[in-house]
């Protein structure tokens, strides 16, 4: 037989199959889930096709062989459907061998016309390939058109010569693995190994004209839990040195707790972007070079408080009534002038809808507030009407409040509470509310962030009352958490 087709039943089998096929020949045609080999000329190298097919058709791989490509593919699919390792059709015997096969196998050959033709054949009581093969061609064509004739030809073992187009992923992941024996305890040696792997990765990316915007490094540790590191790149890149710089910084900041027994490096791929839209683009751009920017950001992130997650990013307003609510979005390298705008990334932070400034509101702009981050703890005395009359910030002295404005109340996020009734002041809560639960049943990847106003999360419960007060010559914004009762000074007005 001339053609061999191999089908993998699962991803692990697909990987083994891929290695095995590449070992046989570099010119195998690759489909979505199969490999097709033209055995002409390979017999001398590897022996008869039948023997090779039987050898490879183990552990999740099914093989089909026939004189025609499409028939070989169908034979492989039949083998998978029947649970047989391989089905090999000798030339001249295809029609007889195919005759008892159920017609439903042909459903996998794909398009809508074929599906409709198969439905009509089922309605006609045609159950197997032999019955289809016996139908008169002209009458079949008059009824089912070219799709009918094609199916009939397949059923007779006279299948077409469709090529299987290889479809390398435009995006996806690249993974490198290394098992280390003996385990590696030397940090410098580990860094050197990492540099070599990253160089290999860079060459791989270069060959495929791909970039990466994220690297995940997982280090298996001897007698200790594995340690994971992540580096993000904005803009995406493929320079080995830039990739290595970030990962090395991460390793130095948090070295592995034990000798490393193995590592897995996974790169998230992105398609490349044109970097020079015009002859003068490089001169017009005033942004720092992407590589330098990425290196700078990684160094900056290494010095920040890792308990804040994320600790570095671009502040974005959040559509919420919560005063001052914002979130940090991943930093995006500025667009090169002249380039078509990049599709905005998937972000959990929604842009707040534009609020039109009413023409009738001729009020002057409000004064700027210099926010205290974090807010200053405050002590406040109230009058019988519940209005603040004196304030002390931190351990400082008391100051009489000369004027005040408020209260201004805002609350929300009650749906994140275990008891929504408790969320809105009817029962004071002892601790800040739980973090937002993810929409899936899986637990959130990160631990809940502690209460902080660095990155106020309006999706958590809040119930606040603000007062603007004048103390001497200063004007302060005070805030009371109505759920817990505590007071803070949010900031000072200019």
């Amino acid at each position, binding site marked *: 037989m001339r053609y061999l087709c191999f089908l993998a039943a699962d991803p692990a089998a697909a990987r083994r199959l891929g290695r095995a096929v590449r070992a046989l020949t570099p010119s195998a045609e690759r489909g979505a889930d199969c490999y097709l080999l033209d055995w002409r000329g390979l017999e001398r190298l590897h022996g008869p096709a039948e023997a090779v097919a039987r050898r490879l058709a183990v552990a999740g791989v099914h093989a089909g062989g026939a004189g025609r490509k499409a028939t070989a593919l169908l034979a492989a699919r039949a083998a998978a459907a029947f649970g047989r390792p391989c089905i090999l059709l000798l030339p001249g015997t295809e029609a007889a061998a195919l005759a008892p096969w159920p017609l439903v196998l042909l459903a996998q050959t794909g398009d809508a016309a074929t599906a409709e033709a198969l439905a009509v054949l089922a309605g006609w009581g045609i159950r197997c390939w032999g019955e289809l093969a016996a139908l008169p061609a002209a009458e079949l064509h008059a009824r089912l058109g070219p799709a009918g004739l094609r199916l009939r030809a397949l059923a007779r073992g006279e299948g077409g010569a469709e090529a299987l187009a290889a479809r390398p992923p435009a995006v996806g992941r690249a993974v490198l693995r290394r098992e280390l024996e003996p385990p590696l305890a030397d940090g410098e040696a580990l860094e050197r190994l990492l540099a070599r792997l990253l160089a290999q990765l860079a060459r791989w990316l270069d060959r495929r004209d791909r970039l990466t915007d994220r690297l995940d490094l997982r280090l298996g540790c001897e007698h200790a839990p594995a340690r994971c590191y992540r580096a993000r790149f904005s803009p995406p890149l493929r320079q080995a040195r830039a990739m290595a710089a970030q990962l090395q910084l991460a390793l130095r900041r948090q070295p592995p707790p034990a000798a490393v027994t193995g590592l897995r490096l996974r790169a998230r791929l992105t398609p490349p972007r044109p970097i020079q839209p015009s002859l003068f683009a490089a001169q017009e751009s005033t942004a720092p070079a992407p590589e330098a920017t990425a290196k700078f950001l990684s160094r900056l992130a290494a010095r920040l408080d890792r308990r804040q997650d994320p600790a570095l990013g671009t502040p974005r307003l959040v559509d919420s009534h919560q005063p001052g609510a914002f979130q940090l979005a991943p930093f995006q390298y500025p667009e090169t002038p002249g380039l078509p705008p990049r599709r905005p990334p998937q972000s959990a932070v929604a842009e707040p809808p534009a609020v039109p400034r009413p023409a009738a509101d001729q009020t002057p702009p409000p004064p700027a507030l210099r926010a205290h981050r974090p807010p200053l703890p405050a002590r406040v005395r109230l009058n019988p009407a519940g209005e603040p009359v004196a304030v002390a910030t931190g351990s400082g002295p008391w100051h009489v409040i000369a004027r005040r404005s408020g*209260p201004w*109340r805002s609350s929300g996020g009650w749906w994140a509470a275990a008891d929504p009734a408790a969320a809105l002041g009817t029962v004071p809560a002892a601790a800040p509310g739980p973090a937002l639960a993810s929409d899936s049943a899986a637990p959130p990847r990160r631990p809940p962030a502690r209460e902080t106003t660095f990155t106020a999360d309006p999706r958590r419960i809040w119930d606040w009352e603000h007062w603007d007060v004048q103390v001497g010559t200063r004007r302060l914004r005070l805030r009371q958490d109505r759920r817990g009762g505590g007071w803070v000074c949010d900031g000072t007005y200019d």
Partner: protein
Amino acid sequence: MYAELHAQSAFSFLAGASLPETLAVAAAELGLGALALVDRDGVYGAPRLHQAAKKLGLRAIVGADVGVRTAAGEPRLALLAESRQGYQNLCRLLTRIKLRAAKGQGAASAEDIEEFAPGLIALAGAAWRHHPAALDRLAGIFAAGPGPRRLYAELCRHYRREQAAANRAWLALAARRGLPPLATNGVLYATAAERPVADLFASLRHHTTLDAAGRRLEANDERRLKSPREMARLFADLPAALAANAEVAARLEFSLEDLGYEFPRAILPPDATETQYLRHLAEQGLERRYRRASASLRARARRQLDRELQLIAQLRLEGYFLIVAEIVRYCREQGILAQGRGSAANSVACYALGITAVDPVAMDLLFERFLSPERSEWPDIDLDLPSGERRERVIQHVYRKYGQAGAAMTANVITYRQRSAAREVGKALGLPPELIAENARLAAAGGLGEANLAAHPRQAVFLQLCRAIQDLPRHLGQHSGGMVICRGRLDQVVPLENAAMPGRVVIQWDKEDCADLGIIKIDLLGLGMLAVLQDAVAELDRRDPAAAPPLDLARFPADDPQTYAMLRAADTVGVFQVESRAQMATLPRLRPERFYDLVVEVALIRPGPITGDMVNPYLQRRAGRAPVTYPHPCLEPALRRTLGVPLFQEQLLRMAMAVGGFTGGEAEELRRALGSHRSEARMRAVIAKLRARMAERGIAGAVAEEITASITSFAQYGFPESHAASFALLVYASAYLKAHHPEIFYAALLNNQPMGFYHPATLVKDAQRHGVRVLPVSVHRSAALCEPLTPLPRASFRLGLNYARGLRAEAVAALLAARPFASVDDLARRTPLRKDELRRLAAMGALADLPAQPSAQERLRRRPALWQVERAARPSGSLYAGQAEEDAASPLPEMSATERLAADYAGAGVTLGPHPLALRRAALAAAGVRTARQLAAMPDGRRVRVAGMVIARQRPETAKGMVFMSLEDETGIANAIISPPLFAAHRLLCVSAPLLGIAGILQNRDGVVHVRAQEFWALPEPVAAPAAHDFH
């Protein structure tokens, strides 16, 4: 004192979070003097607030919130009714907005506001500062004419910075235009605890989740009802706003007590009053009805009629009766069967006018159940009409007669139920789709509780929200048949709006609201069986034009022995009201022999008598196994007809009249007081009155207590005898048809699906088992509908093209016009049938009347038809147009019996060939499985195995968790009883297997056969069987 002049209830759909009653209670508790309900684009909740406020001593103010079209948008304007004129104008304005826009949309123009401004006070909110020109126009409109000002600048303060800034700008602008400020709180909910519901509704309204809703939600929970003291503190710096509030509240005097609704006047002959005309028509009708009756019956009927007409005149209800009689006359003229149901059948006046079909004098029914001087309400006459186009014609007649502004359907408030709440709350909380589906499934099964929910961090919130929105309004629908008519303009009494159904207009209130406000409603209800009977009578008239009168159910001979024999044998598949499993289990025990037995049968199998434990005592007495006793000898006349067991509401009245000397009206009041549970004090008062009256007549002690207990408990479940009698007429008529004209009966049943208890497939098999020949769908011979054929040599009917699934109406019309066809090719060329339609017709054998070959006589079988259809559906193009080509003979194999069965179900939903169980009977018999017919001959207590297609599953609320299942095989229907634990253990199999085998113990007593299930097994199904009718 402060009054809340701008509160929105949950009838501002998906905005307000509290029912009007909840707002009323909260307002009263806060010490508010008055509350204005200003719902969006309507007065939907006004009647409910009115009723609740009355009980609380709160003043209810009527208003609505409308959008006004300006150059820059549609700001909202709150309109409050100052007087009846203002209310009428408000209703007409809302009607105009609603009728000219799509459902759920609409805004007023400035011209609309100007036209309907008199009698209204308007509150313009801060949003109007963006529409200065429109505001000036408004100011001009509301400043016109003498009197105090009628446009105010509404101010709300919700402790929001942006709002404070907006209010400052608004106040300044309003002051420049001389608009005084007026304080309200823009209420969306009664208390802060309901704020989550308002947020939920906001996210649903914007089709987003709570997480993503952002500033579409409210900033805080301040839009609640506030006390006068709180509002005084809030507006301490602006006392003029509070003063304006109090001043306006005092001026808003209109109340729904002053609605001004009047029932229309009937159209009378010249110089005749309503009283005279009604008497004339009633006496004419009486003559017609009792022409063949005995002299004594005629005399009794005349005396009764005189009494009724006198009472009707006393209560000034002549117009109502005349109008209903006019509708019935229209039906008669149009050849549409109509029958009054309910307590109206107690009235000989209704019988004489042709409104009802039951002779109340011969049946000794009690008029006071329908009408009495003591009742303070209008009578309730409901008309049953044939469902479908004929009923629609009657509805449109009422619309035409009373004008678009004079008649409308009553609304039906669709509220959140467990399942709908689970779906929508789940989406708003962003739960995963599979969890939403699971929660909804649990909700539908009544299992939504903490113990059953899958683990998820938001499930607790989910459950709380579901409970919170239970019974809150979701949207307004249309009642199935209630119509309101009015003298003059109905749109001045209540706003009208378009229903979803074209040609229909609804009012903004439901039937309870109408009843509370004294608005008369006439129910025009669609009944499938009336449509069947109408079709049947038309066919009988066609066969025998000399038979008279047409369209009268009385034409069926009374007391037909064959009919009663069929009923006693429970051979009642398709028969009105008595085809359910429970009815079929009662008929052999009750053994009806005359009409009144059917009246009892209809009333007996109801939740009331079942839970009141009256069914078995009656049947035992009827079978002679228990003595017939009465609690007191004076009750014998009232209870004799039901063997001492009270079944009917009329009997309660008679009992009260007999033991306590109550008048008919007093007895009816007693029944209503005991049956409604609305007022404990009222119930105690009437019971005390009953005891006192009994004591006066010497009935005391244990006997009095037994009678009181009997009356009190019976009041909950009694069924109107008149209603049962009306339905019994239809039972008898449909049974008579089945017994004597089965081909007409089944054809009409199949033409009026969906209706009844059984799938059409079961009806067809039942017909075949009765020897009726059912002919298949044929492109040459079938009419559009199923057609009974002249019953020689045997009863037969042909399935119509309505049983070719997926056949478009235009395809049917073209097919009927173009036939006959010489070939499949001819059919494809001369009709617009699509490929899928041709395939389906071929597969179900509908092309059998076409020749297999152009020159051949042989009929076209299914596979060859499919072979030819496939070529005919791919035309060869204009080059070869008109050239007939001889097609090669089909090489395809013939369909097997199973394949034909599958094609039948897929194509028509019914099969005329062997039943699915017949195809496997040999194997089943070898396994000891009996047929349904064999069970009847087997002894009680025997262990049996039976199998069939599951055609019905029931779990009635009265059955304490027992499940009843009906299995059909080729010989009939077998019924199984499944205990709750067994059902729970085999739930999936019981609810999902289309073909099921059951092993258990046979119960064969008094002609009733059941299998008490012990084991189940599923039969493999080679074809997709019709779905069972499942009732829970």
